[in-house]
């Protein structure tokens, strides 16, 4: 086994947990002393730094959600002095307000370190050429992968998104060995390559892909690996946590979450209490080393489970199983996060329609198509089809403005959409996962 940092990566669980506790204590003391906001929140929760005596005590700390980031836009949660901030990434918000993540030099260093370890865990090294086909820019994906790959000593091809034919040429000509992108983009690229008569498996040096930023399945992995003859590695991260952070090792048996950088808990989404070890629940992340934007018990909304058993690769850090759902039903359309609550929000502001709606997402070729069915308010019914079309257009425009995604709106007869007694099912995802 080749490790990027074997001392840390193979430390036993007790050792990892001791590091985590020591970092957590330091973090909590620092925030209590330096951040009026965290200080107030801890006082409110009735917890002092001295109360954190074991890792289990982490539950006493108040949890954070995306709301906290939005409410404190742009940088009120930052705890590093402005002169120490080296970079910002910005992600689209759920009610139109974006969230901003800041990084100090050490934050970027740790982020890169995390990815370098992950890349090495499935065999990448300084001889590799990694094409980063994640978006560069405000989105944290492209630059995150870029720095991780450079840290590893690999050569980076910063292709970003789009220009698929050019990307295929680059893979051939620059002898690219690994590509980072979304699974759907890789499938699209492979289809384009086939049309051009290029077999990405045998006509190029490509032998792995680092895939994330959208949910994908084991079936999709089998499809990609079988069709392209490469290894498809699952990657996990979130902009709030830095960006893409962790991947699977060559065993493809869960994503190694580096315990020295990150403490992950699994809680019951309803009660917020810890579930039993190995049980499924909502993931809660504490970034132990972050300087610019501390994340304490961040409830990210993803549902999965954590396995602590030593991996067959020899690494000891907890492994994250596939994310199988979202607490808040967030859907990702063409790489953009969409929350059903946003749709509700828009409908609430338009008199001619009710709050009943149904979102359908379908694959259109390799792209996603989103349709929103809304019920006309019976009072607004008119015999005038042009006026009804006008209502459809109004809803469509308002949704597009907030979501930044093209939306097809269908106006429905009042009462025709399904009603729910318990939790409403507002999203039908018909996308083909191959």
């Amino acid at each position, binding site marked *: 086994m080749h490790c990027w940092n074997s001392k840390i990566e193979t430390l036993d669980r007790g050792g990892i947990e001791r590091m985590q506790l020591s970092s957590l204590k330091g973090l909590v003391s620092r925030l209590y002393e330096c951040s009026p906001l965290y200080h107030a929140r801890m006082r409110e929760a009735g917890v002092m730094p001295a109360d954190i005596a074991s890792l289990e005590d982490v539950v006493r700390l108040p949890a954070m959600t995306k709301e906290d980031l939005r409410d404190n836009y742009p940088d009120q949660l930052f705890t590093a002095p402005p002169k120490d901030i080296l970079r910002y990434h910005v992600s689209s918000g759920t009610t139109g307000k974006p969230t901003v993540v800041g990084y100090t030099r050490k934050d970027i260093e740790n982020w890169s370190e995390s990815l370098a370890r992950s890349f090495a865990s499935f065999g990448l090294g300084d001889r590799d050429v990694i094409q980063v086909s994640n978006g560069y820019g405000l989105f944290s994906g492209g630059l995150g992968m870029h720095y991780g790959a450079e840290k590893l000593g690999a050569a980076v091809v910063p292709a970003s998104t789009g220009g698929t034919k050019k990307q295929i040429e680059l893979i051939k000509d620059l002898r690219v060995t690994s590509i980072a992108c979304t699974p759907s983009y890789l499938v699209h690229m492979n289809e384009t390559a086939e049309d051009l008569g290029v077999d990405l498996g045998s006509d190029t040096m490509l032998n792995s892909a680092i895939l994330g930023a959208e949910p994908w399945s084991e079936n999709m992995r089998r499809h990609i690996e079988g069709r392209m003859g490469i290894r498809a590695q699952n990657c996990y991260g979130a902009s709030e946590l830095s960006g893409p952070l962790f991947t699977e090792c060559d065993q493809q048996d869960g994503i190694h979450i580096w315990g020295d950088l990150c403490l992950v808990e699994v809680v019951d989404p309803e009660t917020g209490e810890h579930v039993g070890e190995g049980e499924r629940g909502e993931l809660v992340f504490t970034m132990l080393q972050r300087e610019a934007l501390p994340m304490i018990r961040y409830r990210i909304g993803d549902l999965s489970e954590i396995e602590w058993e030593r991996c067959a690769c020899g690494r000891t850090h907890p492994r994250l199983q596939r994310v199988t759902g979202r607490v808040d039903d967030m859907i990702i359309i063409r790489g953009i996060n969409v929350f059903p609550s946003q749709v509700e929000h828009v409908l609430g502001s338009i008199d001619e329609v009710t709050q009943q709606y149904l979102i359908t997402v379908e694959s259109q070729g390799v792209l996603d198509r989103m349709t929103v*069915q809304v019920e*006309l308010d*019976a009072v607004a*019914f*008119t*015999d*005038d*089809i042009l006026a*009804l*079309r006008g209502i*459809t257009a109004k809803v469509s425009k308002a949704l597009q403005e907030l979501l930044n995604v093209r939306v097809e709106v*269908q*106006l*429905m*007869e*009042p*009462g*025709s959409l399904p009603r729910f007694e318990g939790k409403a099912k507002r999203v039908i995802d018909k996308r083909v996962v191959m």
Partner: protein
Amino acid sequence: MSVLRQVSVMVENRTGKLADITGTVGDAGANILGFSIAEGENFGIIRLMVDRPEQAHEALKNKGHTVSYTEVLAIRMEDRPGGLHEAASSCGRLGINIVYAYAFRNPGHAVLVMKVDNAAEALRSLRAAGIEPLDHSSLV
């Protein structure tokens, strides 16, 4: 007053919906004189000219249908070749813009039902030209 009340119903595209509507109207004791179906993107609008619009409207509403009144005009046409052409020509000459129209036939004459841009103005122009729009009692 010869502006007629047409009953318009919004219906989702589903088989059996028309029969739902016609059954309700029949049970309410309203006779459908003429009707048309307009097709929207994923719903239709059924437009009904009945002899008792209030009964039909109430029964449909009670059954949970989305229903409204629409003001339309109806004029008599000669039931012979060229009859519709004469009616259409008159409207054209009088500057009446027809949004949609449908027709039905009674013994002895035919009726053209029209939704126009401005019903009150169209009514005046028609009358000034000696064409008396029909009221509910003279429809049948």
